């Protein structure tokens, strides 16, 4: 039974709709310098209990996975537990995380990724570590497979990470053997797979498919040697240089745990990551 639209749509309703619509458009047009403090204050106040709840939920999920791992090792039913692919994948990620932590030694903070429901979640992700734990602006954020992005906003308990998929992401990259240097930026889409572009490579220098690309350390923001991805093809060329397509090592949508590098590193970090990191999957 219809209640009747005429009974609902009063002038007051229309006025409220127009006002909220206008406020939304104003919010969209705010410069980053204005909108970031607003978003940050919302995360610190209204959203704080919900982010805590989400963080606890992630921790509970991780604890359950660890418990399942201990049980599986103790029990001869390891094979049965092995069929739970989700648990196995979670365990593999956690083991890789522990291995990365041991190899990095010190100067990092572990954190959970608090994924959100919207499609733009892959451009920026919220993590459960903030300035109280030493996270600073522009700190590199890594997963066991390589670079996820860098910290763009930080508050006491959480931080926002701009991933490599963010339109404003730029990084200085190099081939694993140091023979070729270029600038990395998001390429866009190919089907549902996102890629990076390695541009500015001199025309005479060839980069074979399968070459691992690492951060070069130039620019002083990202340390040298963090895997970014693997060359999968050529995007284009000019008279002077070529642009290569790079398949990123870390998919932002599926990463669950990360480490934030909290102190400046001058050493080459390549050895801290797994040897097969950044290799393209078939």
């Amino acid at each position: 039974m219809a209640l009747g639209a005429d009974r609902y749509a009063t002038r007051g309703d229309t006025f409220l709709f127009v006002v909220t619509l206008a406020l939304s458009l104003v919010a969209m047009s705010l410069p980053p310098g204005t909108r970031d403090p607003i978003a940050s204050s919302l995360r610190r106040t209204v959203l704080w209990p919900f982010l805590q709840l989400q963080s606890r939920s992630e921790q509970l999920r991780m604890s359950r996975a660890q418990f399942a791992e201990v049980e599986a090792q103790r029990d001869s039913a390891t094979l049965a537990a092995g069929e739970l692919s989700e648990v196995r994948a979670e365990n593999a990620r956690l083991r890789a995380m522990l291995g990365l932590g041991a190899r990095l030694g010190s100067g990092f903070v572990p954190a959970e990724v608090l994924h959100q429901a919207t499609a733009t979640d892959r451009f920026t992700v919220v993590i459960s570590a903030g300035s109280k734990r030493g996270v600073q602006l522009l700190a590199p954020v890594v997963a066991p497979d390589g670079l996820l992005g860098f910290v763009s906003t930080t508050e006491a308990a959480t931080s926002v990470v701009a991933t490599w998929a963010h339109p404003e992401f730029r990084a200085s990259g190099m081939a694993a053997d140091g023979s070729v240097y270029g600038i990395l930026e998001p390429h866009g889409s190919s089907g549902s797979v996102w890629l990076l572009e390695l541009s500015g490579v001199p025309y005479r220098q060839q980069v074979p498919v399968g070459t691992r690309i690492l951060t070069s350390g130039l620019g002083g923001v990202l340390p040298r040697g963090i895997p970014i991805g693997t060359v999968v093809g050529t995007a284009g060329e000019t008279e002077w240089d070529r642009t290569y397509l790079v398949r990123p090592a870390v998919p932002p949508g599926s990463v669950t745990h990360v480490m934030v590098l909290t102190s400046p590193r001058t050493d080459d970090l390549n050895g801290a990551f797994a040897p097969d990191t950044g290799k393209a999957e078939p």
Partner: protein
Amino acid sequence: MRRGESLRFGFVIALLVGLQFSVRSRLGDERVAPDFLLLALLTYTIRARPGQSAVAGFIVGLIGDALTPASFGAGALAHTIVGYLSSWAKAVFFAEKLLVNGGLFFAGTWLRNAILVLASGKFSGSQLTWELFVWSPLQGLTTAGAGIVMLVIFRQWVTVRVGES
């Protein structure tokens, strides 16, 4: 609305918000998993007037924008429009049939995602096509499914009675 009914209705809304931040991450691919926060908004619009729904949509959208600053404002815009239209549509098409409500949940989710990806300006080409015609419909289906389950369980608590508004 009487006090007891308000409390029960508020409980359902709070439950959906709690599910968003506790259970959702365990429900598979985030592009497809049901959006309980949007479901809470659409449920709220069952009883609220269009103006109130627009304000609620703006608040929900702004909260979402605070968590994904890459598209700040786009979420508020999308949720405001969806909240207003949902409340208005329920005044026009109001029915106690589950499938009609499920259809509104599906349409609301798809429309929210469509406005969000278009307003954010971060998508183009084949990725935009995938978001509009693959991931958004799938999330619409899962959100509608979750909404139907919610209505089956809490129907007496959330549906509006004729003569009440």
